[in-house]
């Protein structure tokens, strides 16, 4: 039997964007066992809910994650609105949709870059991040923040996008879409990329469903489940189909995210076209009394915000189940049997966001 060595992978490792620790048991270069552990960046954000008044906690909720920031804020305010039965104005719902889809675009482009870097394709990494920059510019122009938007509030949104700006955004979409197509061509058709991704970390359809996988990890295995179909924000009025890919390997997960780029572009386009006029927020009085599980589709998958209030200004409990936590079981299933060189690719393929996971 070959000698077994244990390679510590993380919490600080150049190919890992965030601190997850994996003990990889190797035989030569084949991974035979993997033991994950987390807990390096717990910040106690859930506890803060008892220290901040519920309208202010949205700023904290947004900072659960630096990438899916907007959607954490959105999930939180939607939860509060559901408890308090607040009817959000239509324009606010559409604006939220636009910002959520911009966030998804920038998150996916960020991920594509990191993924390219994990397989040693530096130029593709640079290109993905270059495209991401144009999305960040739009976000900055419309919200004032590049990654932390801070525009959601209970009862609506804090900022409006003027009609002029909306059509400006729409005008830039076709060119951006073309650039995304060029990027997609490299990811899906380049032989060296295909060699690195094909048949790697396969999770079958029923297995992914049973493991409780979320987001592109689930859809990459052929299950077209997308929390956006719940119809929150303006998604019920817009026309879209969840992107899925049957193969279940790293290539499929990559293809799903690339497909979602175009879904997002299309959704932004639709939202701009259908954008209703009207107020952007309603005044919210009182305090939440009740509980709610709010589910939102983040770039990484479905996030669950569990919120409970007792009629005071401070919620009594908040709990966030992030998509990364749900995707750890599939990851533990994927890794054994792969090559050491493929570990970063497989780990990245679930798009781990550890600071989300630990709150």
């Amino acid at each position: 039997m070959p000698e077994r060595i244990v390679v510590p992978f993380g919490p600080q490792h150049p190919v890992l964007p965030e601190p997850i620790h994996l003990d990889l048991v190797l035989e030569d270069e084949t991974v035979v066992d993997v033991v994950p552990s987390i807990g390096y960046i717990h910040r106690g954000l859930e506890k803060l809910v008892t220290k901040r008044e519920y309208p202010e906690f949205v700023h904290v909720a947004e900072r659960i994650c630096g990438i899916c920031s907007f959607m954490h804020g959105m999930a939180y305010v939607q939860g509060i609105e559901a408890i308090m039965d607040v009817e959000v104005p239509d324009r606010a719902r559409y604006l939220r949709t636009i910002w959520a889809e911009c966030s998804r675009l920038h998150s996916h482009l960020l991920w594509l870059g990191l993924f390219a870097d994990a397989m040693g394709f530096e130029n593709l990494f640079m290109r993905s991040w270059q495209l991401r920059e144009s999305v960040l510019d739009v976000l900055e122009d419309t919200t004032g923040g590049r990654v932390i938007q801070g525009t959601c509030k209970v009862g609506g949104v804090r900022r409006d996008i003027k009609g002029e700006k909306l059509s400006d955004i729409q005008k830039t979409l076709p060119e951006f879409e073309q650039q995304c197509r060029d990027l997609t061509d490299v990811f899906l058709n380049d032989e060296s990329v295909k060699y690195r991704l094909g048949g790697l970390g396969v999770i079958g359809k029923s297995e992914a469903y049973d493991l409780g996988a979320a987001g592109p990890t689930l859809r990459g295995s052929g299950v077209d489940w997308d929390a956006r179909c719940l119809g929150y924000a303006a998604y019920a009025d817009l026309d879209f189909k969840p992107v899925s890919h049957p193969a279940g390997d790293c290539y499929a997960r990559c293809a799903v995210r690339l497909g979602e780029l175009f879904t997002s572009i299309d959704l932004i386009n639709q939202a701009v076209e259908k954008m209703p006029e009207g107020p952007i927020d309603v005044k919210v009085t009182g305090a939440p009394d009740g509980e709610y599980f709010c589910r939102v589709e983040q770039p990484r998958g479905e996030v669950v915000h569990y919120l409970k209030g007792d009629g005071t200004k401070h919620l009594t409990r908040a709990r966030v189940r992030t998509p990364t936590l749900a995707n750890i079981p599939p990851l533990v299933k994927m890794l054994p049997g792969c090559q050491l060189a493929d570990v970063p690719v497989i780990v990245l393929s679930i798009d781990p966001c550890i600071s989300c996971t630990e709150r």
Partner: protein
Amino acid sequence: MNGILGALLFIILAPFLGGLIAGADRILTARMQGRVGPPLLQPFYDVGKLFEKENVVVTTAQNFYILAYLAFIIVSGALFFAGGDLLLIIFAFTLAHVFLVLGAYAVHSPYSHIGAERELIQIMAYEPMIILSAVGLYLVSGSFYVGDIIASTVPAILYLPGVFLGFLTILTIKLRKSPFDISTSHHAHQEIVKGITTEFSGATLGQVEIAHWYENVFLLGFVYLFFAFNPILGVVAVIVTYVAEIFIDNTTARLRWQAALQSGWGVAAILGLFNLAVVVYIIGGV
């Protein structure tokens, strides 16, 4: 006499030339990625800084191995530019890398060990093709001596296009560029951090860098041999080759070690051997 002069020039000038090539490489790579890139002299600043660092070594043996690595790279390059025997040069060159691998094995780090194993695989992958290239040049010019090959007026490239392509493939391995930067790459963004050089720091790492500059000049000199019949064409070919390597680096992902081995032996068997067979049996030598 001429030989000693060549060797001396190599020993003195190669680090400067190698550093400049590395600097130009970084700028060109940056431009291909839509970045500005560092100043041309950045590699010198980097190495200068490395030599200023405190010497932190866990196993003192690694210093010896790395020094031996540098020494043998210089010896093989000097022999080359002195017009020496190509076979001897190749073996000295291989020996140098064996020292590098030993240096990586001397430390106790799984990253370094896996890097060393991969380096060994890479040596195995490129060795057949390098020897075939030497054999090919012998068949064309009738001598293993670099001096004679350069003096030969036979256009080697016309007889050895397959061998040359094969050599370009393994040059990617030697220059540590994508898709074959598997044992270590120019940055630490891979699963084994910086692979074989993970545990070297300060002056030791500086020596590895300098050895890499020497090595690059030597390898580009090898490319020149295929075009030695026309010096201007030779220099142009060397530049084109290097730019092509950077281009390949920027348009491919890193492959696994299995692919490096398959490619190395594949080009040796298909391009190299076939080309040699054509030269020997069909053209019947030169």
